[in-house]
């Protein structure tokens, strides 16, 4: 069974909040991934541009998502991604995990992972690879 089929066959659909944080205005990548996850049978909510970390954390908890996918191309990932992780943990939402994509230098990835970002997908990643990862890593409800 392909990842796409497995995603569709789950008891509870995987829920993902796709988010843009800070002033970064490039959201094509976020929208393409959002479409891809939707096509794979997941439930996807998109925050729209220019959200604060507070707004993202609130939306993630209210929407009861499994994942927050943050797309960031502004170079502010080192500050903003760990901040979202910390705020989720502080609000008792440690089960909500974070994936990230956009323009993130390879050399920054170990530090982001140490700070609790589950996985960084660099540009050029096939959508199927992201779907596969989420299906594999989301506990079946």
């Amino acid at each position, binding site marked *: 069974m392909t990842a796409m089929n497995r995603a569709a066959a789950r008891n509870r659909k995987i829920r993902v909040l*796709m988010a843009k944080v*800070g*002033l*970064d*205005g*490039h*959201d*094509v990548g*976020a*929208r*393409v991934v*959002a*479409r*891809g996850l939707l096509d794979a049978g997941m439930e*996807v*909510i*998109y*925050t*729209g*541009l*220019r959200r*604060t970390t507070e707004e993202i954390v609130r939306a993630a908890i209210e929407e009861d998502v499994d994942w927050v996918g943050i797309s960031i191309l*502004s*170079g*502010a990932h*080192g*500050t*903003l991604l760990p901040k979202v992780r910390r705020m989720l943990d502080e609000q008792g939402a440690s089960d909500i995990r974070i994936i990230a994509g956009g*323009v993130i*230098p*390879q*050399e*920054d990835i170990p530090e982001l992972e140490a700070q609790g970002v589950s996985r960084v997908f*660099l*540009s*050029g990643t*096939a*959508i*199927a690879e992201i779907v596969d990862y989420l299906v594999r890593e989301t506990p079946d409800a």
Partner: protein
Amino acid sequence: MNMKPRDMFVPVPDEAGDIGAQAERWKAQRFDPQADAEREASSFVTDVGIPIKPLYTPADLERIGFDYLKDLGFPGEYPFTRGDRPGMNRSDPFVISAYSGFGDAEACNKRFRKLIDIGTEQILVALDLPTQCGYDSDHEMATAEIGNVGVAIDTLADMELLFDGIPADSIKRIGTLGNSIGPIVLALYAALGEKQGIAWDRYTVNLQNDPLKEYIARGTQILPPAPAAKLAADAVEWCIDNAPNWSPMTVCVNHINAGGAGSSMGTAIALSNVRYYVDLLLARGRSIDDVAPLLHMFPDERHDFFISVANLRGLRRIWARMMKETYGATKAEAMACRTTVYGHGQEALAEPLNNIARTAFGTLAYVLGGASYVYLAGYDEAVSTPNENSARVALRTLQVLANEHGFRDTIDPLGGSYYVETLTAEVERQILDGMAEIERLGGALAVISTGYGRRVMTEGAVRRQRAIDSGVRPWVTVNKYPQKPDVPNSAFRGDKQAAERQLARLARVKAERDAKRVAAALAEVDRASAENRNVTPAVLEAVRAYATVGEIVDIWRRRFGTFVPSTDF
């Protein structure tokens, strides 16, 4: 049809009428279309959707009704297909340009001096996101963003430092993007000249100042589209009266194409935006002959070399006909579409040095297509703002294109090619169809308000992603010849103290400026905005008084409201 000189196209005169039939015969007997189809036939469809034939002949020119005098004419003459100026690159080479900015003005000034030292003729300042979005460096939204994607500019004091030792008239053009803060960046450059004691007619400022595409493509929008376009038009109008040698608006295809629309639909949307801005200025009683020469276009095509050439040539033809036939322009400068381009290819994260080849080929298409102002992306732009080395290589690549290989020896070298003329006509048709569709929709603002623009872009981006995922669009090191071994990718970072220096300078300027003068100037900006007057004179006075970018934009936020981004995808 009028095709001269005939023998240029027709090697066997007595079979001239049968070229189409001969081409079909050749294809069936010799070329083997079956094998062609079994090969990577799908990759012979361009990003804009035009399929490419194995061979183009005079029969194609006949099919498109090619007419030399009507369709091409001569460089610098209507319809400007072969070039916006008579001598083009042969007598007046394209302007070697750099888009640069990071950190604070102090750090950035050092980079500018180095770029000029090695031959940069035009610098467009990359602003950081807080500046572009109208937030001062001490605003909460600026956290972690100061100096990241460009240099932080809060007040005129930053501009003075940024151009310290660089007189405004020492290079061909200076400028910036400032799409959502057009009158403010215009005022900053006007006040810079005053500070340096250089009259406005002795230097040239180029601005992007194209807010409409931000709403669908680039994302620095602040206000709703209509007031944003009004402010952009204010900047253009001020230049008509005070600095007609400046180019205060560059209408962009670039971001719309990159975001997924494709270069033909991107051009259609951009030209519809041109029409919106032009109509605003004509409604103020300005003449098209005064307005059009101040506008530039920023075409873009990164996937297909020959489509890129066709796009530039087709764009010039459409612009000329639009200005003459729709708007009644009479001056050649109003009908000649000047173009700024930024050379890209499909840059990859993997093995970044390969991007030098990609961007060079992408830029060569623009040079052969006759672009006037040429920038070239740094090989590391897929991962960060360019480091000093990549900025230098980008400049050197432009110098190679301008000086070696003979690329600029003759004007419009690809003109007359069966292939390129056919593509030019096909691309032109796509653009005109797109413009007609947008017209039916209600014009430029409807592209934003109906969600049409976003939809076109998302669908295009999804299509591109599928083409990459499936391998239909080959991409070296990404879906073909995967990189072995892993080549590390490192990002340029400005010094960590830039943000601290910027915050300290902003605090010092605020403490030392004449608070009364600032308050009076800001009150006048508010009045001009409320009374629907041109805000530029009031903004210039506020900038001279060291009002901050954020203080001026806050007035507009209160007056016009803010744009609420869509959550559709």
